[in-house]
């Protein structure tokens, strides 16, 4: 089996880490009730909207857990070169993309406000998704 190229592995590690920082920031904001530092208007409206919580769990926390797992799985692959991890990773990033697509939809069409942190998260999860497709091609 071909090994994952270095750029792809480091790409996964770095992008998931950025996503993790972003989602962690939002999770802490959520639990402390503080206002976000917003460069563009509307992010606090988005972050405190009714859609920011699902079954009592803040979306930001789910995001942080998602990015942390991608990060840890990538580190695990780096360390073990275990090909099974790649399969999990490539599937996992599909879920990330779908969730982000839903959040972008909510911001644009339901809430009508844009939150830069959520858009950053949409970007990182889209990149991870693209990486995920690459991984698939390396596996086969």
């Amino acid at each position, binding site marked *: 089996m071909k090994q994952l190229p270095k750029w792809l592995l480091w790409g996964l590690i770095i992008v998931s*880490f950025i996503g*993790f*920082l972003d989602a*962690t*920031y939002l999770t*802490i*904001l*959520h*639990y*402390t*009730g*503080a*206002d976000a530092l917003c460069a563009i208007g509307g992010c606090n409206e988005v972050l*405190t909207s009714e859609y920011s*919580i699902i079954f*009592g769990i*803040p979306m930001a926390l789910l995001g942080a857990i998602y990015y*942390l797992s991608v*990060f*840890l799985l990538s*580190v695990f692959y*780096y*360390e073990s070169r275990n090909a099974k991890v790649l399969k999990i990773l490539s599937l996992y990033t599909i879920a990330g993309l779908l969730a982000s697509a839903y959040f972008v939809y909510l911001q644009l069409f339901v809430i009508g406000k844009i939150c830069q942190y959520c858009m950053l998260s949409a970007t990182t999860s889209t990149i991870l998704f693209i990486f995920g497709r690459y991984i698939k091609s390396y596996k086969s």
Partner: protein
Amino acid sequence: MGKKIFIWASTVIVIIASIYLMGNLVGGGPVASPSEVSADDWKAGNLEASVVLLEYGDFQCPACASRHPMVKNLLAEFGDHMTYIYRHFPLSIHNFANISAAAAEAAGKQGQFFEMQDLLYTNQTTWVNSVVPEDMFVSYATDLGLNVSQFVQDMNSSDTAALVREDLKSANKANLPGTPTFFLSGEMIRPGSEGAFRTLIRNAIEAAS
């Protein structure tokens, strides 16, 4: 083996450090003075007094409920010499924080804000653990002799939600550490006991007179 340990140890360190860093980014700032007393604030005691005790609370917060009897005692004792103001700081971790604040606002519209505040704090464990807290709020409104249909309408209105949000905004702006947060004439106080609380208030009243 050594390389494995190194990789995982650095990973754990990086994760912990980044959580810590993000935490500092959010809550590291100092607490600012809260916004000035406004006409929209709920006030009790002597409204002319120069000493103002301001509380930011959340009806679902256990620490607020445990402080409530203290505040009540102190208000009974010093109510002639100070104004007591209550503002909402509904924490997002409490799923009924907003609706309970709205219930108090709705009772306030019929002149019974502090009566509802008292019922909400005194019976906190009951309604927090009930299936539909709103039903409990309605029963409190009934006990207080409020116009119940008006109460329900006000509790669920977007205007009431906006009033609660205004308080939340001012709490966020002041960078409050949590609930309850007390300000005595603009300065944050953290009394550890009712005795310490009493001393602080007594000193402030003596200094003002």
